[in-house]
């Protein structure tokens, strides 16, 4: 964990907050003055501090939040269609929708279509939107390029009016998360969860070899050398998983030197990608690839491979996302002592960069025949009661502040000591999103070239800058 000063700086410095104030934000978010929200909007981090869970009393706890009823109900039997891309979220989404039906609107049902992956869902959504189809009513989208695409094409509705009608609902989200989903002044979608990218580690292996959790990059390199000498792979890193993974080390470095806002400006074509800080990010990627820290051939390793390497004890660490927690747990043998830590500080005295983003986010098709009902359903899933159930089920971080009682309620069934750890790391998060598709593609290819040693950091960033310039002035602005 970073120091208080680190965290203060990580939040942009415009209105630095103490730990106490951050904690208060978690508990008192509902009464937080607007000025605090505006100050946080200047930051690039996603998330905020949660309170320490209250000691669990005996007996079964209940969700402490109120499941508020809708302002509008279906006049007759109505089914909303919802297309998403994360299979393991279906169960909890269904549960909330059924509770909503049972408690508030017996006429309203939710039909969930879970595509096998983001690519497949995006193709399906694109076809539906181009055909002006009213189906699906609710669409799951990713922050970044996907949000820009659906927003600038006028395919989805804006949440601004929903928030104006229900300010309390808006206060339930981390402001910086909504910022990430605000395109040309319109709030394109709302997050169901937030999540982080951290380093999972095998505590037993660390103990066995007298290793401590690294605080700096040098510490990590020393650990790598020790493990390599013992024939243990230091880090399983699934860079071959998708086109975002090869960029993770880059985001990590840029976040670690607090240049994530510079990255965003470069992404929007306002600053060059060849600035020294951004080139240094590419040099970091190159250095990491040559450091011997990764399992061999990271671009040929996908998530299941990396999990297997880690779960079988071949590697001591696994660099991955909070969303993989379930897959990792499922693969681990009994007695595996799993821990996690934020990536160590990449610069002397710097903070520990935790990549952070909103997870699946929900929006309403502009051609939906029941847009108001769709908004109400989204409010049920992402609102005060829904978010506690949602994250309790998945062990992912909530989309906004929840109370200490709520965390205690979640822990009663989650029983996962890592969950509070993730919550602690959320406020230190730094961006892992690029909005301009062509730039993202150039970054993916560039990082692959660095990992395979085909190009130098400078040439890679020059090619990213060339791609960025080719796009020209962006037709969108964010935040």
């Amino acid at each position, binding site marked *: 964990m970073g120091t208080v000063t680190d965290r203060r700086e990580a939040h942009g410095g415009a209105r630095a907050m103490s730990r106490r104030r951050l904690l208060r934000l978690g508990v008192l978010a509902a009464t937080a003055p607007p000025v605090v929200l505006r100050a946080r909007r200047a930051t690039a981090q996603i998330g905020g501090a949660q309170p320490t869970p209250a000691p669990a009393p005996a007996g079964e706890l209940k969700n402490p939040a109120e499941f508020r009823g809708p302002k509008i109900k279906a006049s007759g039997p109505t089914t909303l269609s919802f297309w998403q891309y994360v299979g393991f979220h279906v169960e909890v989404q269904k549960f909330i929708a059924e509770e909503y039906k049972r408690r508030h609107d017996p006429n309203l049902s939710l039909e969930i279509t879970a595509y096998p992956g983001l*690519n497949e869902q*995006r*193709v399906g959504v*694109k076809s539906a*939107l*181009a*055909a*002006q189809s009213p189906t699906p009513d609710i669409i799951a989208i990713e922050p970044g390029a996907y949000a820009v*695409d*659906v927003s600038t*094409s*006028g*395919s989805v509705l804006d949440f601004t009016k929903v928030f104006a009608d229900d300010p309390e609902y808006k206060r339930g989200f981390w402001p910086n998360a909504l910022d990430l989903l605000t395109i040309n002044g319109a709030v394109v979608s709302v997050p169901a969860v937030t999540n982080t990218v951290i380093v999972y580690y095998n505590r037993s292996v660390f103990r066995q070899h007298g290793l401590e959790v690294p605080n700096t990059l040098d510490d990590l390199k020393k650990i790598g050398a020790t493990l390599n000498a013992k024939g243990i*792979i230091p880090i*399983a890193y699934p*860079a*071959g998983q*998708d*086109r975002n993974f090869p960029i993770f080390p880059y985001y990590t470095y840029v976040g670690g030197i607090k240049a994530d806002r510079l990255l965003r400006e470069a992404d929007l074509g306002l600053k060059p990608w060849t600035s020294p800080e951004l080139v240094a990010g590419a040099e970091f990627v190159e250095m990491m690839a040559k450091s011997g820290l990764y*399992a*061999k*051939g*990271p*671009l*040929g*390793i*996908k998530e299941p*491979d990396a999990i*297997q*390497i880690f779960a*079988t004890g*071949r*590697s001591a660490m696994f660099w991955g996302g909070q969303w993989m927690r379930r897959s990792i747990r499922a693969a681990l043998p009994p007695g595996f002592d799993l821990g996690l830590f934020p990536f160590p500080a990449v610069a002397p005295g710097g903070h520990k960069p935790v990549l952070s983003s909103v997870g699946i986010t929900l929006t309403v098709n502009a051609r939906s025949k029941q847009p108001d009902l769709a908004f109400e359903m989204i409010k049920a899933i992402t609102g005060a009661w829904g978010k506690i159930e949602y994250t309790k089920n998945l062990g992912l971080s909530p989309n906004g502040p929840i109370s200490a009682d709520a965390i205690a309620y979640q822990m009663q069934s989650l029983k996962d000591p890592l969950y509070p750890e993730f919550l602690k790391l959320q406020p230190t998060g730094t961006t892992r999103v690029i909005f301009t*598709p*062509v730039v993202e*593609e150039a970054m*993916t*290819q560039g990082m*692959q*070239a660095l*990992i*395979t040693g*085909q190009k130098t950091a400078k040439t890679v960033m020059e090619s990213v800058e060339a791609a960025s310039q080719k796009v020209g002035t962006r037709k969108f602005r964010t935040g």
Partner: protein
Amino acid sequence: MLPATVRYRWRRQAAGYAFTGPALLILAAFLLYPIGYSVWLSLHEWDGYTPRWGPFVGLENYRALVADEVFWRAALNSIVFVIVRTPLEVGLGFLLALLLNRRLAARSLLRTLFFVPVVMSLIVVTIIFQRVYEPNTGLLNTVLHAVGLGAWAHPWLGDPATALPAVIAVSVWKNVGFSLVILLAGLQGLPQDVMEAARVDGANAWQLTRRVITPLMRPILALTALLSIIGGLKVFDLVFIMTRGGPTYSTEVLATMLYREAFELNHMGVASAVAVILVAVVLSIARIQALVLRESREIEAA
């Protein structure tokens, strides 16, 4: 009033059109219209989200492709894919067909075994081979280490130099059974009197294969090769699942480029231009295939 012969001919033709009409309609709706629409889209700029396509840009998308080094890389990879895959697939298929055409004890079992990959789900095959190629715990590197060839262990899919050959190898493994079945059927249909005459003339197995069987099999070999070429040019799923065209476009083929341009970069016009080029190439090869088939029929008739 039309003459009786004209009425008769018209009635005969009307019946023909009535029978083929539904099929032609389906063909027009699901093949000709999409192809025509793709050609039309390739002359426009469109992001794929808005209901109407964007401005007419003429041949600009094609010009952009010509200037795009990724397109040439993808085209080259597609050609390499075909050039390497086809001889291996057809050659191995032919060798196996020759083997299985002999009286072997386990002929049926072997034939089934070689055909199993063809009927296996491609997703399953790719997932299996991803694990086989995994650099640290994968089967291939493990075996190499076990037999003392650890120096050859390699990040097969993670290295641009070996990624494409690794994917082609999977493609060959998956499809060789298909070539085998076609070629085996061809071998079993060869005129036995010719073979017998060659044997009586003292031809040994090698001479029989080289001088008699291969020339007789040429039309079927050509057909198998053409099917393999078309399959190779259209390859998408295997590459997309295994490598997504990476690393650094080393396995990017025209079909994966088409997908990326259309659905990741929202350049539907450029993607359509790639599709048009791909269709043109495949249709040209299909035309060659038709000519080869005609030639084979003429040979048979002779």
